[in-house]
């Protein structure tokens, strides 16, 4: 599950900072704690970008190693988690570029089309629509749906809504402006909603509902 970190007050030190200090002082076990804390998130983010399990596993390992090696560059004024996510995003994009040789991968390609900024399907959903599917079916639907989004939208949604980064953090992590994140987030949410409506909308019965047992 996603960890939504509460925003600590300015003078309040985030517990990660103390752990980072210990690692810097040579205590590797403190890094173990940090890895355990964030490995799931990093794996998910890498999966969202690379859409490939092996790549995500590699990226996650490389990102943690890189963070460890570059720990001296970590500025205490930004959150360690956000800093880590930025490393994982960069590693993931590099991995993608390697796979799609020749084809540039860029999340800051300006998506000029207005497509997807208006909802199309206004059918209401059934109450608790997830319950109409088993775990595996539901996971498949959610995966297929989010994978169908344009890359730039998918990433903004994953970081902002799934991983709980703030709009500003998402912008910083992806190297986008805040308005760009906002416009992508809205379209990502609306497109996902439209696509999920196909699976989750209320079934309108073709015939009048029958009383239980009335059928012969």
């Amino acid at each position: 599950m996603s960890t939504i970190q509460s925003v600590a007050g300015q003078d309040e030190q985030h517990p990660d900072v103390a752990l980072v200090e210990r690692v810097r002082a040579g205590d590797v076990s403190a890094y173990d704690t940090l890895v355990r804390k964030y490995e799931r998130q990093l794996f998910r983010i890498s999966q969202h970008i690379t859409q490939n399990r092996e790549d995500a596993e590699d990226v996650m390992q490389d990102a943690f190693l890189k963070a460890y090696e570059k720990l001296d560059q970590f500025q205490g004024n930004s959150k360690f988690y956000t800093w880590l996510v930025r490393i994982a995003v960069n590693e993931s994009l590099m991995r993608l570029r390697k796979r799609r040789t020749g084809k540039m991968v860029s999340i800051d390609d300006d998506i000029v089309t207005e497509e997807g900024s208006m909802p199309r399907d206004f059918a209401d959903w059934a109450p608790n629509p997830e319950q109409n599917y088993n775990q595996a079916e539901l996971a498949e639907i959610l995966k297929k749906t989010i994978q169908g989004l344009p890359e730039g939208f998918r990433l903004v949604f994953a970081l902002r809504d799934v991983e709980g980064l703030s709009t500003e953090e998402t912008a910083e992590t992806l190297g986008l402006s805040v308005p760009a994140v906002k416009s992508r987030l809205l379209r990502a949410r609306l497109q996902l909603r439209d696509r999920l409506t196909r699976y989750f909308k209320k079934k309108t019965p073709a015939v009048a509902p029958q009383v239980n047992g009335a059928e012969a």
Partner: protein
Amino acid sequence: MKCTEFLAILDDVIDESIAAQTRAEIEVHLRKCGHCEVVLDTTRKTIEIYRCHEIYELPSEVSERLHNAIMERCKKAK
């Protein structure tokens, strides 16, 4: 308020960063516009569903293997 105006601030409505004055206008609009009400409700559910369901699960044995590999490499790096 028109539907397009409502949709333009949909994200702020969802993220609950709306001034009280605007909130009142939204409520008036939602009371008479079923479409916007559905869009708001189902967009909220969309986010919630993605938050609550792990679509890229990391089985504990894989997690353990990766974790050990990471720590191994870090120890070597020092």
